[in-house]
C-alpha cells in the first residue's frame, strides 16, 4: 500500500506537470517556471508566518500570490528596459533568498526546512494523511488531484484563447482576447503546480518535470492536443520508470525521475535525428536513380 501511494504520487506529479508544461514551452517561458518554482517558497513561508499553520489551502494561496508577484516583477523590470533573463535572475534570487531567511528566522522548528523544499522526499509522502469526505489519502495526493483539476479546468475554459494568445498575442489583443488575464491566470496555475509537487519531488526537480516531458513532446507533435497527450504520457512514464530504477539502485527517487525525463528527451531527439538522416539519404538515393 505504501508503494502504491508513492507510485501514485509520482504519476500525478508527472501528469500534472506534463499538462502545465505544454504552454510553458510554447510561450517560451521555461525560465519563468524555474523562477516561480523557487519564489513560491517565499509565498509558502509568508502564508505560514501569517496563519501559523502548514495548511495546504493557505500554502496554495501564498504560492499563487508569490507566483503572480514574480511574473509581475519580471514584467515590470523588463518593461523598464532590463533584459528579460536578467530580470528573472534578479527577481527570483531575491525572493528565494527572502524565503530562506524567513524560514530560518521564523519557522525553524516546523516541518519546513530548505532541503525538503528543494529536494522533496516522495518516500515520506504516504505518512502525512488527510481525511476528506471520509476518504483518507496522503496529503500530497489530495493536493496534486486538486491542482490537476484546476489546471484541466483552466485549459478547458480557455484553450482556444490560450492558443491564440500564445501564438500571436498582438492579434489576440486586437480582437479582444484578455491576454493579460490569461498570462497571470497561467502563472497562477504554474504556481499551484509547483506547490503541489513540492512534497514529492521538490522545487528544483519540479522544473525538470514541468519542462522535460513537454519539450520532448514538442519535438514531434503536429498539434497542441498531441503535445498534451504525449507530454502527459512522458511525464507519467518518467515517474514510474524513475521510481523503479531508484528502488533497484537504492538511490534518490526524485533524482531518478528527473534523470529519466532527461533520458527520454535525449533518446527522442536522437531517434528523430536518425529518422531525418535516413529520410534524407533515401531521398538523395531516389534522386540519383
Amino acid at each position, binding site marked *: 500500500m505504501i508503494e502504491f501511494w508513492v507510485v501514485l504520487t509520482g504519476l500525478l506529479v508527472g501528469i500534472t506537470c506534463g499538462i502545465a508544461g505544454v504552454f510553458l514551452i*510554447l510561450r*517560451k517561458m521555461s525560465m519563468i517556471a524555474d523562477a516561480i518554482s523557487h519564489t513560491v517558497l517565499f509565498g509558502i513561508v509568508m502564508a505560514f508566518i501569517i496563519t501559523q499553520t502548514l495548511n495546504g489551502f493557505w500554502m496554495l494561496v501564498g504560492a499563487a500570490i508569490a507566483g503572480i508577484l514574480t511574473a509581475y516583477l519580471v514584467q515590470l523590470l523588463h518593461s523598464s*528596459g532590463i533584459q528579460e533573463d536578467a530580470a528573472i535572475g534578479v527577481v527570483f534570487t531575491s525572493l528565494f533568498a527572502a524565503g530562506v531567511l524567513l524560514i530560518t528566522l521564523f519557522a525553524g522548528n516546523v516541518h519546513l526546512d530548505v532541503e525538503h523544499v528543494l529536494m522533496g522526499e516522495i518516500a515520506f509522502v504516504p505518512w502525512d494523511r488527510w481525511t476528506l469526505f471520509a476518504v483518507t489519502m496522503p496529503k500530497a495526493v489530495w493536493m496534486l488531484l486538486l491542482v490537476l483539476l484546476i489546471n484541466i479546468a483552466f485549459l478547458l*475554459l*480557455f484553450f*482556444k*484563447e490560450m*492558443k*491564440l494568445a*500564445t*501564438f*500571436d498575442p*498582438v*492579434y*489576440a*489583443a*486586437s*480582437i*479582444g*482576447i484578455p491576454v493579460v488575464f490569461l498570462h497571470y491566470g497561467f502563472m497562477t496555475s504554474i504556481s499551484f503546480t509547483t506547490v503541489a509537487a513540492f512534497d514529492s519531488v521538490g522545487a528544483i526537480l519540479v522544473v525538470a518535470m514541468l519542462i522535460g516531458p513537454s519539450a520532448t513532446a*514538442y519535438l514531434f*507533435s*503536429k*498539434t*497542441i492536443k*498531441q*503535445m498534451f497527450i504525449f507530454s502527459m504520457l512522458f511525464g507519467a512514464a518518467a515517474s514510474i520508470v524513475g521510481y523503479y530504477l531508484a528502488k533497484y539502485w537504492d538511490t534518490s527517487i526524485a533524482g531518478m525521475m528527473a534523470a529519466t525525463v532527461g533520458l527520454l528527451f535525449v533518446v527522442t531527439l536522437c531517434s528523430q535525428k536518425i529518422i531525418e538522416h535516413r529520410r534524407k539519404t533515401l531521398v538523395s538515393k531516389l534522386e540519383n536513380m
Partner: protein
Amino acid sequence: MNALTVENLSVAYDKKTVLDNANVTVPIGRLSAIIGPNGAGKSTFLKAILNQLPNKVGKVEILGEIFEPKNLVVGYVPQRNAVDWDFPTNALDIVLMGRYGHTGLFKRPSKQDKLLAQQALASVGMQDFAERSIGQLSGGQQQRVFLARALAQNADVYFLDEPFAGVDAATEKTIIDILKNLKAQGKSIFVVHHDLQTVKEYFDYTILLNKTILASGATEEVFTPQQLQKTYGGRLFMMQGM
C-alpha cells in the same frame, strides 16, 4: 464618416519619441499605403491605433468610434516574422483563429465558423493546404494564411503590416487582388508598404510617415517627388523617372 481619425497621437519608448503628434483622417473605402523610411514608426503607428501600446497619448477613432477590440471591426495582419511558425498547428487552425472573437469565451468554434475559415483559406488559394503544418509552408503561403485569418474575421477596416515583405510574385498578386476586392466591397484597408515602385499601381490613398504624419491624401496628390524627398530626406536617390 471616416474610416480612421487620428488626433495628436504620440508614442515614446524609454523616453525616446517614436511617434510625435501624428494627425490624419482617411475616408471610408480607400486602399491606403503607409510609407516611410525604416524606423519611421510605421509598425508603432499601427499598434498605437490598435490600442496595443499603453504608453500612447492622443485620440484614435475607427469608423467614428473609439476603437474597442471586442467590436471586431478591425482585422489586423501582423508582420509575418512577428510569430513563431514552429507552433504545432495547421493552416486551417490559424485561419479559424480569426473567428475566435465571434465565437466568444468558453465556446468552441461552430461548424459555421469552420466553414467560414475554409472559405477564407480558399479565397487566398490555399484550400489544398488546410491540414498542412504551418512550419512547412513557404513565406508566401504563411502570409496568405495570415491574410485569410483577417478575412475570416469579416472586419470593416483592415490593417496590414508589410504583407508583401519576402513573398513571391504570385502571392503578391493574390494579396493585392484580394485587397482591391475588399475595397470594391466598401471596406477600408491600410497597408504598411515598402516598395515605392508599386504605390501608384496599388493604392488610391497614401499616408507619408516619418516620426509623424508628413502628408496624406489621394495618391496622385501626395505621392510626388517633393513630398517623398521630405519623408525620406537624402536617402531617396532612385526615385528619378517615377
